[in-house]
């Protein structure tokens, strides 16, 4: 039973093909086959948010999907967010500037989530920011730096800062 299935996923612009067991989660595929180890795994049941990726532009938990389900889809991980290797995405820059991270374990999920959040809400209030980041857990920062980083990123990405 459970034959391996051939899939082809565009990961950060590069075609990634492979034979996968259906039970392989997308998170494990991204980490182990596509070597995108920026996809972190904390809880593996949808709560912590550190495995968040963009699937066809939408922020989703990669631990709650199977790799077979991403066949023919486009995935962006934290590695593929910036324009190129030498620059940072405005959200990454803001996390660096505003002490939005300490140990960094939660950071890839936050960066992806905040990028997606600002796409939909370019000019958020602080309250909207706090609600927007509620799907990601951080055990280090106390969130103040992350809120500040989100505010800065909103400003640099073109929304008005408040």
């Amino acid at each position: 039973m459970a034959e391996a299935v051939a899939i082809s996923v565009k990961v950060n612009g590069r075609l990634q093909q492979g034979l996968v067991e259906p039970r392989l989660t997308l998170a494990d595929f991204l980490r182990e086959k596509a070597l995108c180890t920026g996809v972190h795994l904390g809880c593996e049941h949808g709560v912590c948010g550190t495995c968040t990726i963009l699937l066809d532009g939408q922020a989703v938990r990669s631990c709650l999907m199977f790799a077979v389900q991403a066949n023919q889809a486009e995935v962006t991980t934290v590695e593929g967010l910036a324009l190129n290797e030498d620059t940072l995405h405005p959200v990454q820059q803001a996390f660096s500037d505003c002490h939005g991270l300490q140990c960094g374990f939660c950071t890839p999920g936050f960066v992806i989530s905040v990028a997606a959040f600002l796409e939909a809400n370019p000019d958020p209030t602080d309250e909207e920011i706090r609600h927007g980041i509620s799907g990601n857990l951080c055990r280090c920062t106390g969130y103040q730096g992350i809120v500040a980083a989100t505010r800065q990123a909103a400003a640099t990405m073109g929304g008005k800062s408040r």
Partner: protein
Amino acid sequence: MKPAAFEYHAPESVSDAVGLLAQYGDDAKPLAGGQSLVPMLSMRLTRFEHIVDLNQVQEMFGVSSTSSGNGANSANGINGAARIKADEVRIGAMTRQASVETNPTVAQKVPLLHLASPYIGHFQIRNRGTIGGSVAHADPASEYPAVMLALGGIAEVASPLGTRDIPAADFFQSTFTTALAGDDLLVALRFQPWAGPCSFAFAEIARRSGDFALAGAAVALGANEAGKINRAAVGMLGVGSTAVRASSVEAALSGLAVDEVDAAEVGRLAAQDMDPVGDVHASAEYRRSAGSTLVGRVLADALVQLTEELKDG
């Protein structure tokens, strides 16, 4: 790899999905958004030899509606809307919670679904989770079952024997248990929009934004031109083994003038309708008290809106 091994099926039509469920019986399980099923598989709380992924079944996605009278179909993205009756909104079971949240037809015609959606988990969960999955999973603390029960929504179910309708009142049987049999596929949900002066409100209490609610309430109110309440629907979540209807509150409101209701007092009646269970998150007593307080609050909110609407009338 965390889940037990399974064989993966990705049918592209309702009939193929139903066929697979019939063929493999209890060994098969439909996979919708996976936001509840995948954690259960990963923690090995459950295992299935066959997973029937519904994400390729295009006819199960999207919202369509008919307006009264002409029955014209203003479908936006759904096929197979054959069962839709005049003046109904039909939401495909695979419609993502995020789409329900932002769909203009839903916002206009079934406002309670629109109001309840942002309370479901976080936006990353709603991007994947589906309305059909929420309803089929039947967590008593879930938002959509309470709204569906309050509004008397209809579950459209396909099986090898054909398609049938199950009204919400018969659908939710117990915690995580519905009227769906193992080879039943929930295809869509249907709702009748309210006409005339009416208002809607939703609220819940949770420890953290995005957590499952400790208690929550949904209310819909309608009045006649004279300002007397002629329709009241109140659903509650987190206060029983299923979503619960606050029938005592509904009965007490009937016939009252909109401006003579003491919302907090009527809300307290809701305590009679619930049978909360205590757990690590909150005691039964807390849930009962929070639940009736919330019913009072959403009622007050809906009454203010209804008064405004009657004034503008």
